[in-house]
């Protein structure tokens, strides 16, 4: 490489994403700097790769029945992916219950591909060694709702019930620390270490939080699903780990999703 080529390079910015040091500026808060950092890397969200991988999984025949998921009904009709996530969780007639995206994907993988639900639920989350299929599929589906307004219904009695159960779980204090979701997420303007905690009872915060999940976690190098996020909340509260795609996690998802209604879905997001 000769020097004239080097001189043409106006700026080189190589991000070791886990260790970005932004020069300290007077009067700039930590959360502003995090926002700057997010802005810088917003075009380079590695969750894009999971979206691509998820689309491939969606279209590829698999399971004992060697079928693809292209006929999966996510609530907007057989095979309609576009905008489906913005209306989930919802009541499904065939299963006669309210389902979030992941439990619905599990139903489709079971009925269309013949994969036993226990087998899917056994590896619900991605690990460093291996990506979870259901999590990768979810990343693809949510990406197809980007820019679409959240419109989750509570018209059906079972949807209404799920919302009410979710609300109760959100406020239910228990466990060795006597914690509830609302312990951290029902007050405005508080934080844990550098992280601002959203007040999920306030529409603006609830919308920003819900519409940015699933998200790529830079510190873990993995795209994390909403079920995973709830699971981690329970872990942090020292609660017993909920069953994957259980009624409890679906109800909490319902509560969060309805509170985010009206906002444009913006995921998959990018988190520290």
């Amino acid at each position: 490489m000769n020097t004239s080529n080097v001189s043409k390079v106006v700026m080189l910015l190589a991000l070791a994403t886990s260790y970005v040091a932004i020069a300290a500026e007077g009067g700039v808060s930590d959360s502003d700097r995090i926002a700057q950092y997010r802005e810088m890397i917003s075009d380079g969200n590695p969750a894009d790769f999971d979206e691509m991988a998820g689309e491939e999984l969606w279209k590829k025949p698999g399971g004992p029945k060697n079928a693809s998921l292209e006929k999966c009904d996510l609530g907007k009709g057989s095979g309609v992916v576009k905008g489906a996530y913005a209306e989930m969780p919802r009541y499904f007639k065939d299963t006669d219950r309210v389902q979030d995206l992941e439990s619905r994907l599990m139903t489709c993988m079971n009925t269309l591909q013949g994969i036993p639900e226990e087998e899917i639920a056994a590896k619900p989350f991605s690990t460093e060694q291996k990506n979870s299929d259901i999590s990768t599929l979810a990343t693809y589906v949510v990406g197809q709702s980007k820019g679409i307004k959240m419109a989750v219904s509570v018209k059906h009695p079972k949807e209404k019930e799920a919302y009410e159960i979710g609300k109760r779980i959100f406020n239910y204090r228990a466990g060795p620390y006597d914690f509830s979701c609302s312990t951290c997420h029902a007050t405005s303007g508080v934080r844990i270490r550098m992280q601002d905690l959203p007040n999920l009872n306030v529409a603006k915060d609830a919308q920003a939080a819900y519409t940015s999940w699933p998200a790529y976690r830079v510190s873990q190098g993995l795209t994390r699903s909403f079920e995973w996020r709830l699971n981690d909340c329970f872990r942090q509260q020292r609660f017993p780990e909920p069953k994957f795609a259980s009624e409890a996690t679906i109800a909490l998802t319902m509560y969060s999703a309805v509170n985010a209604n009206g906002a444009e879905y913006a995921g998959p997001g990018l988190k520290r």
Partner: protein
Amino acid sequence: MGNPMKIRAAVKDGVTEVKILMQHEMETGLRKDADGNLVPACFITEVKAQHNGRTVLEAQFGQSVSKNPYLVFRFKGGVAGDKITISWVDNKGDTRSDETAISA
């Protein structure tokens, strides 16, 4: 053959901005797995960017660069439709090359 990268290139006021997201494990060789065995090093060592076949950037990467590296650079020149080719080589000799056209 590595996994595909995502490349975006746009020209504005005679300066082309190229954004590249590479898909790579970038193992340092210092980490241990669950059984206590070292995870072998695997990281990109060289990245090259070409504009219509002319090299505009060469970079040497090491273990300190994160997984799925994201690289942004700008260079003078380039018009919409020109070809940008990015390629990398890792320490195991694996390589990947992808291209895109500059958008206005």
